[in-house]
């Protein structure tokens, strides 16, 4: 068994670890559920690249947005995933999320950022979103 980390090192790791949440849609843009293998691949990726993942909410986040093309209000549901990473790896996560958005046929994978005690949902860097 590996020796436990010295307390000071464990504390330092905890301070320098960033918890990042992002939204992965339950359904594709045509309203069809994603296949099990698609979801499993995302989870395996997160385990391999960032050491693990967890679900950060009781239920998927339900949202409504106005489609700029049709002008209709559309509804979607997304799982809120959470990973713990070193802040220096945020760019790596964003790159992964941009690739994921492409793979899922989504315009963006939205990341949840907390600033001044309030949460904001922003697109992961590298995702193409209509302004």
């Amino acid at each position, binding site marked *: 068994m590996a020796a436990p980390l010295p307390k000071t090192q464990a504390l330092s790791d905890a301070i320098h670890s960033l918890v990042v949440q992002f939204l992965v849609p*339950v359904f594709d843009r045509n309203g069809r559920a994603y296949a*099990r293998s698609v979801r499993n691949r995302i989870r395996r990726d997160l385990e391999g690249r960032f050491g*693990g993942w*967890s*679900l950060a909410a009781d239920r*998927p986040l339900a949202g409504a947005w106005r489609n700029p093309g049709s002008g209709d209000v559309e509804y979607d549901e997304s799982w809120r995933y959470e990973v713990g990473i070193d802040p220096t790896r945020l760019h790596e996560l964003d790159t992964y999320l941009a690739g994921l958005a492409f793979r899922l046929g989504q315009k963006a994978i939205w990341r949840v950022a907390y600033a001044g005690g309030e949460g904001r949902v922003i697109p992961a860097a590298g995702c193409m979103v209509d302004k």
Partner: protein
Amino acid sequence: MLSSRARRMQYQLLTGETLELSGLSRADMGFLLGLMGRTTAEEDYFSLERSVCAPGAYPLRGSPRVTQRIHDSLLFRVAEDIVDRAGIRQGVVAPDPGDRRVTEAIVSVTEAAKRLGVTRSAVIKAARAGRIQGKKVGHTWALLRRSVASYRVAQHRVEAGRASRRA
């Protein structure tokens, strides 16, 4: 899905792969049977999924995240498969092209009693005598749907025989 062969419990994943469950503890089996019961009761997929992989979920064994080791564990794989079946039935997860048809292979004593038109104690008696195949884990019986169905056929034959003798 779940089968009992020569006193061994096996689970067949949606992919068709069969897993031997003898390595699981009683508590693990209790968790899986409870999960199956909740899917039979048509509990919402999202709440089932939380029971398997959210922080504090039993298969995570205290870990705040699902790691590769947890994902590869027998308990997690079976639990996730049980929940996926519910998700597929509820239309929130799509099956993979090679997946087997989603069917419930396990029934509870209450459901078996309802199907057979007998009391719960009659079902338990039949299960104890081996006339209905299944396994008791803790206080819960997991009965094979196939076995309950064939018991119903046998029951009908017995009743038909009695009726013809009376005539």
